[in-house]
């Protein structure tokens, strides 16, 4: 029963692969615009021997480091901002002004500041993901139902206990959904940054394969990073569900 269900869920993807192959093989679309699916699979297995995994690992290291720092710093900063009003009055307008800035405009700045290496990408992802996390943690913590806080206080909880034992768990659902948006953003910035300038990583690989005219290889790179993005998101959703098991 479960197996059938799982297979059924992947039917549309299988269908997509079949249509892709057919469209390309039948010449409905130029092979340069869309290499046949089977060619992409071949290119994928060839690339797997030629450093695809090294490039991927490099990209994931950059992405994970920047993202993890953004989550830790962002949640702390957001919650504390909501709890201590003076901080909020000073920092909030600044955040609101910087928030809608196109995050990819940071790419040339981080390159200028830090150069071409890992740290420039990590910084890019850290700064880019930080603001959405801070804002969602801030809004979540401010939106915590007053009566929960009052309940805890009337039962004798101190200020600090109220913050960590009531405000943070109560804000958790909203914080976690803010982090999900940042996770997607981390991938976008990672790939953009590596496409623009890098000497390794999956974005770099896609870039040189495309310039070298190996379109099937380029597609294989794009499919690889997309698949990783997909599983990262699914894993995150599963983790969220575990953390928020009390929501039923």
């Amino acid at each position, binding site marked *: 029963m479960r197996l059938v269900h799982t297979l059924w869920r992947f039917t549309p993807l299988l269908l997509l692969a079949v249509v892709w192959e057919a469209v390309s093989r039948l010449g409905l679309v130029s092979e340069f615009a869309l290499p046949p699916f089977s060619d992409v699979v071949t290119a994928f297995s060839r690339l797997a021997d030629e450093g695809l995994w090294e490039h991927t690992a490099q990209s994931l290291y950059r992405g994970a480091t920047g993202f993890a720092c953004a989550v830790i710093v962002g949640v702390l900063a957001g919650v504390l901002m909501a709890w201590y009003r003076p901080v909020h009055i000073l920092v909030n307008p600044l955040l609101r002004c910087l928030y809608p800035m196109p995050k990819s405009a940071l790419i040339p700045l981080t390159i200028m500041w830090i150069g071409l290496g890992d740290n420039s990408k990590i910084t890019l992802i850290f700064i880019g993901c930080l603001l959405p996390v801070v804002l969602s943690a801030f809004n979540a913590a401010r939106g915590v139902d007053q009566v929960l806080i*009052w309940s805890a206080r009337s*039962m004798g909880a101190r200020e600090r206990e109220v913050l960590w034992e009531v405000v943070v768990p109560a804000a958790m659902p909203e914080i976690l959904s803010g982090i999900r948006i940042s996770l997607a953003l981390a991938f976008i910035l990672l790939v953009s940054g590596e496409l623009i300038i890098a000497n390794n990583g999956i974005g770099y690989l896609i870039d040189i394969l495309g310039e070298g005219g190996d379109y099937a290889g380029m597609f294989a790179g794009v499919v690889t990073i997309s698949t990783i993005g997909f599983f990262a998101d699914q894993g995150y959703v599963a983790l969220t569900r575990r953390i928020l098991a009390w929501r039923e």
Partner: protein
Amino acid sequence: MTSRTPPAETPSSGGISIRSVCHEYRPARGRPVLALDNIDLEINDREFVAILGPSGCGKSTLLYLLGGFMPLQQGGISVGGRDITGPGPDRGIVFQNFALFPWKTVRQNILYGLEKQRLPKDERERTTRHFIDMVHLTGFEDSYPSQLSGGMKQRVAIARTLAINPDTLLMDEPFGALDAQTRSLMQEELLAIWNRSPTTVVFVTHDVREAVLLADRVVVMTARPGRVKKIIDTRFEGGMNAEIAKSRPFLDRVDEIWDLVREEAIVAGSAGAG
């Protein structure tokens, strides 16, 4: 429903004294709104007082001031002889929407207050079990609030508050979010609990019958700004029971108070889109 006259031999903890309390809400935009206007009220030790009034009359504001959740702007409030300075476990509060911690199980919710009282572990566990039994939730110790019905949630909220053994119980329309049947059952349970261990209770409600049924005295408030319109004694000879609740004096008292409340509800209704 059993007799609700409190046993006289239990030690006293002192009543509540509210003196000339005014409270103004100051919204970020727009004019300030006077919610409470010069409230004077003395509540005796172990007395069950209900506060009735139309929406927006400041009933809940008064309760929150008693709880110490909002700073006192004018006047004085003392509970058990001491002026209140903030929230404290001497005054337990039960909210309309339960205010349970949704990420904690029934047991964890009740334990929380006991942990804050720095009680030894085995005493905490024992007390928690006792109160879970008392509100008939045995078997649901490890359920999360989202898995409980409204009545069960409210029982947890009451157990959680009683567990820290407050001298005063503040209740903000505790049964307002429940359906009519559950509400009736909970009223009976509350009376039974209160008869076993009476404390001072301030009970805010919209429901005239509920107020007369439960309380020793009913305070009727005016429409905004809230003032004390009238205080009515609702203690009946021989205590409260099912027969009394169908008796003519009981029903006449309900009607009398309902007429007072209705006057104010109409004032409140015509004053704006409250």
